[in-house]
């Protein structure tokens, strides 16, 4: 479905993507994770033909991207994080407009409209102005627009930002429904529990490179550790780096987070003593983290970026 080789992209002297390699199979929900500035948005923009790249090869849906951007776009859809719709148009006017842009007409238009409306449960609000919808309803309309061309490949960029739990669940159901309809979904999000919940495969990107890729289940199995995550108050990164330098298996995730790789009551007690001596307050301690968050934090710790 997607094969990326040696992909590099520069913004002036800044290397946004560094010989990135990625393979995504057909019919999966693929989670793309990475701290802010890791290169996720650049990668997704390039895959959607919105940005040029400096080196490498990209093949999407069996087609070479540079040679066939139009054909690939017709078979894929990008659902941006920002609500890319018109507040002053009604739900149905928005849908018809974007369908018109994609030159849909006749039976195909009717079928695709019905599909996008029903999967996103928009039936009761078709004549309502988009500007008057709730945050969750707007997100669903945003997704419905992306489904209009019945794409084989969908890019979701943080689709659940700033919405209530009920709407979030509805959106996650929609994404699962896309998979059931044999669509491939590339999903970027900061909500790691969501990724764990719906993704089949994940890749973690950091400093423009894929640092880990695989099926979620096996990655979590391999990563099964006794890690403990300390969330701290009134600490600074240099301060934490001094502590970590004196302490085995302790990693600095960011200026307010420490990750202790192996769990034992003595080690935890010892670390708490050190923190108290340094007058650093502990906000939260999470034990036995075998989840994606621990994996993510460990892999991206060196860069010190936030989640």
């Amino acid at each position, binding site marked *: 479905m997607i094969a990326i080789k040696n992909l590099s992209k520069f*913004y002036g002297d800044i290397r946004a993507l560094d010989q990135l390699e990625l393979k995504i199979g057909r019919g999966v929900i693929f989670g793309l994770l990475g701290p802010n500035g890791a290169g996720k948005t650049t990668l997704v*923009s390039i895959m*959607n*033909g*919105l*940005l*040029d790249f400096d080196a490498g090869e990209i093949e999407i849906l069996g087609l070479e991207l540079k040679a066939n951007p*139009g054909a690939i*776009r*017709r078979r894929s*859809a*990008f659902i*941006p994080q*920002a*609500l*890319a*719709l*018109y*507040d*002053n*148009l009604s739900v149905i*006017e928005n849908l*018809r*407009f*974007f*369908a*018109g*842009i*994609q*030159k849909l007409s006749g039976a195909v238009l009717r079928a695709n409209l019905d599909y996008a409306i029903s999967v996103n449960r928009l039936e009761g609000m078709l004549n309502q102005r988009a500007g008057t919808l709730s945050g969750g309803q707007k997100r669903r309309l945003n997704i419905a*627009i992306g489904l209009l*061309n019945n794409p084989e490949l969908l890019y979701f960029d943080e689709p659940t930002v700033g919405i209530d739990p009920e709407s979030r669940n509805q959106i996650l159901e929609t994404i699962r429904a896309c998979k059931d309809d044999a669509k491939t979904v590339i999903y970027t999000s900061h909500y790691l529990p969501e990724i764990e919940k719906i993704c089949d495969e994940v890749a973690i990107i950091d400093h423009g490179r894929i640092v880990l890729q695989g099926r979620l289940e096996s990655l979590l199995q391999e990563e099964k550790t006794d890690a403990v995550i300390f969330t701290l108050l009134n600490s600074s990164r240099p301060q934490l780096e001094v502590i970590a330098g004196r302490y085995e298996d302790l990693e600095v995730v960011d200026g307010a987070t420490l990750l202790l790789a192996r769990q034992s009551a003595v080690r935890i007690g010892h670390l708490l003593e050190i923190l108290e001596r340094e007058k650093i307050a502990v906000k939260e301690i999470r034990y036995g983290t075998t989840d994606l968050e621990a994996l993510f934090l460990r892999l991206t710790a060196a860069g010190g970026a936030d989640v």
Partner: protein
Amino acid sequence: MFKALLIKEFRLILRDKQALAALFIMPAIFILIMSMALKDTFNSERSLVDYAVVDLDKTAESAALGSFLKVDKGLHEEKISLTDAAGRQTALRGELDFVVEIPAGFTAELGQGVALGPRRLKLYAAADIKKEMLELFQARLLNGVQQLRLENLRKELTPLLSEAVLTLAADKFKGFELPPEALLKLSFNGRFKGQRPTSTQQSVPSWIVFGMFFVIIPLSTIFIGERRQNTLLRLRAMNVSTPALLLGKIVPYILINQLQMWLMIAVGMYVVPLFGAEALTLGRSISGLFLVSFGLSLTAVGTAMLIAVVFDTVEQATTIGGIINILLGAVGGVMVPTFYMPKVMQSLAGMSPMAWGLDGFLDLFLRGLGPQAVLPEFGKLVFLGLFLLCLAGVIFERKVKSL
């Protein structure tokens, strides 16, 4: 695809009440106000000057002097009694432009041909009287005095002349009694037979031009909104190219400009007369109207697109757009006609696209010329419009690439 872009743009504009007010209601109101405010300036049937005569002389000749002024339709005599200086001052501060005082004994001394000195006519003028009006009124009054002197002379000479000389003189002097129309034929440059320039003919083109440039506000507002809400990004991800995006803006706004122009013309033709000003008459060249309005549209849309791609917020775009609009209008002769401006300002006006469009419209509406006369203005406007659109396209493309 293009149809979808057009429908979307029209829907967004129709739902933007402020935009509709700026595009249609504001210029229509300006046309009404300016046509009515200036109607007397261009109407020779209506009085431009109100005056009163205080006749302290009370002779047949002094009454005749007053009646000389009455012949002029532009001068209107108010029949009010002004017996003292205080009353005269009050009148000049209020309804009157001039008060003429004919002192007692004025006509008698005039008839004797003595130096008048203390018995001179007194002319009191309102403080805000225009220089041209003062000169015209003075000339008219002095003309009346000269006629009075001629009449006195005729009366004195008549008993001294033979019957033959008198008959000859009567024949030769017939011309003096002819009305001005018999001696002078007035025709305005290029107008059709019987047509005169009116305030409506002057106002409508100005406010059409000004109103057309107000597409800057809705176009930039909608475009920046689309950019900020990522709908433009989404459209690009749906294979919509930059030229197609720009064309999706240009065509609707050119159509809106056409609608504006014809609506303003309709206001000039049918609404303005209801308020007492003269109706607009179309020139002889509809094709000329299309040429000028198309050129103006292209420049207005080009300016709007440039503002929309350069500025990042709606507030910046509407503020700068509004300022540019008003400056172009002020310099281009929309607010103050260029013929009132000094030479330096007139040269500056030649740099404003609004002045080019206005000149083109005045060629058609006021001077009654054909499409060939507006080709230079059309060429300049199209060239500038295309240049601005290309510049906007290049800047937009660069901004998109540096996403």
